[in-house]
């Protein structure tokens, strides 16, 4: 189906992440050796190459590192324009791509504090979006 949002395929790295999203929890990894946080999930720490990482629940709080307002999009996203895609720097120091939900594009600023929200896209898919928090809105 051409108009379906590309569906994440949970795998050996990502399955716990998507299970967490299903429970409305934002999970990231922490290296058992160097203690640094890691996202996206993987089997080896990209900092110290240790092969032991644990899942932890992130605070879900962060700030906007950068963003763009999309005016031309394709396929399943064509009807969403204008929409805001942002890179979020989580409090734990890792970066995620997401969308900014619930605010007009003009309200979005780099550095603005945001909080994760769980957006049900359809029966198959819930995604972690972010919303400007009180102090940022």
């Amino acid at each position, binding site marked *: 189906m051409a108009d379906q949002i590309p569906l994440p395929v949970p795998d050996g790295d990502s399955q716990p992440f998507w299970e967490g999203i299903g429970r409305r929890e934002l999970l990231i990894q922490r290296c058992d050796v160097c203690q640094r946080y890691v996202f996206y999930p993987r089997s080896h720490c990209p900092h110290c190459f240790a092969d032991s990482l644990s899942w932890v629940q992130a605070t879900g709080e962060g700030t906007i590192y950068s*963003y763009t307002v999309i*005016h031309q999009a394709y396929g399943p996203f064509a009807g969403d324009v204008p929409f805001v895609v942002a890179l979020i720097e989580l409090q734990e120091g890792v970066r995620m791509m997401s969308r900014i939900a619930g605010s007009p594009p003009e309200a979005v600023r780099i550095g603005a504090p945001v909080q994760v929200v769980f957006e049900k896209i359809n029966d198959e898919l819930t995604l972690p979006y972010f919303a400007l928090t009180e102090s940022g809105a």
Partner: protein
Amino acid sequence: MKADRVAAIVGVAESDLGITPGKTVLQLQGQAAKAALDEAGLSKTDVDALFTAGNWSWSPPMLLAEYLGIQPKYTDGTNVGGSSFEFHVGHAVAGIQAGLFDVALITYGSTQRSDRSRNRPVTTARLTEQFELPYGLPMPVGAYALAATRHMYQYGTTSEQLAEIAVATRKWAMLNEKAMMRTPIAIDDVLNSRWIAEPLHLLDCCLVTDGGGAVVITSARRAADTRKAPIWILGHGQTHTHNSITNMPDLTMTGAVQSGRDAFGMAGVTHDELDVVEVYDSFTITVLLTLEALGFCKPGEGGAFVSGQRTAPGGTFPLNTNGGGLSYCHPGMYGIFLLIEATRQLRGECGPRQIPDARLALAHGTGGVLSSSATVILGRD
């Protein structure tokens, strides 16, 4: 200039460019390869190393070699996006230096415009793409827009400054009869063109065209009797820093920092000695970030550096003299055209857009989403 003369570009050519209905990627590459070998005075039986990159086959080098009737003893299908061909140059020099082969043919071809093959929807997101694709960022423009927003935030760079690049590049295209877009544009035209992904407007974005190209590189020994004067590869450097834009270490600083340092170091030349510079211009922001990372100006000063049409014909910093991906052609992976134009400038073949007495040139490719960077420094005798 301390660099040893190991290998030289001795043939360059484009295929048909622009819109090429009915042509295949194989035809375009055959056309460009034949023309590039012809101008070198070489034939396909001389070719013992083949380099190509594309996504039109599961193995572009094997398909292309079969189609052209070449059985190489060295092959390289490194595909790191639009800069692949600058990577290939580095690999070709290394192979020639090691005595593994004598004549390297690098080709590219694309019919993306006629195929309307960009932005075909996908229904699943696998491996690390599952953390990006579901959010709908149009690629690659959305990723470059994220970098532009960050640069503006950090340094106060303006849309007007980015537009300076598009306007100057168009002026060069007006001097190139092969360029697709040759009507003049002003800063306001860029600013008034529609948004694609803020802060990038339509005229901040490269063209979508068909086209192909070829570059022939040979050893110093063989270059002694080729038809065209050799254009020496004096220095090269390469790196890639990330795959997806989320994982770019610093959205304002590309891997050109490293590839440029390595290339300048190997060539033993300084920035001031260069006569002409060709850098990948997928988007205006790509140019600005690359100029900073290569060290032509300090981080954050790119906006001021390109202001006042400094990079236009007649300006003090001739840049993208064929009209670039912004106005000349952009068949998806543009890097080979940087090498073609730099070579022609050093041979003095560029007619109305010729930089007088150009002796040293830099070509820099950027691929993926500011992911891969490769710098090549070229010079003539």
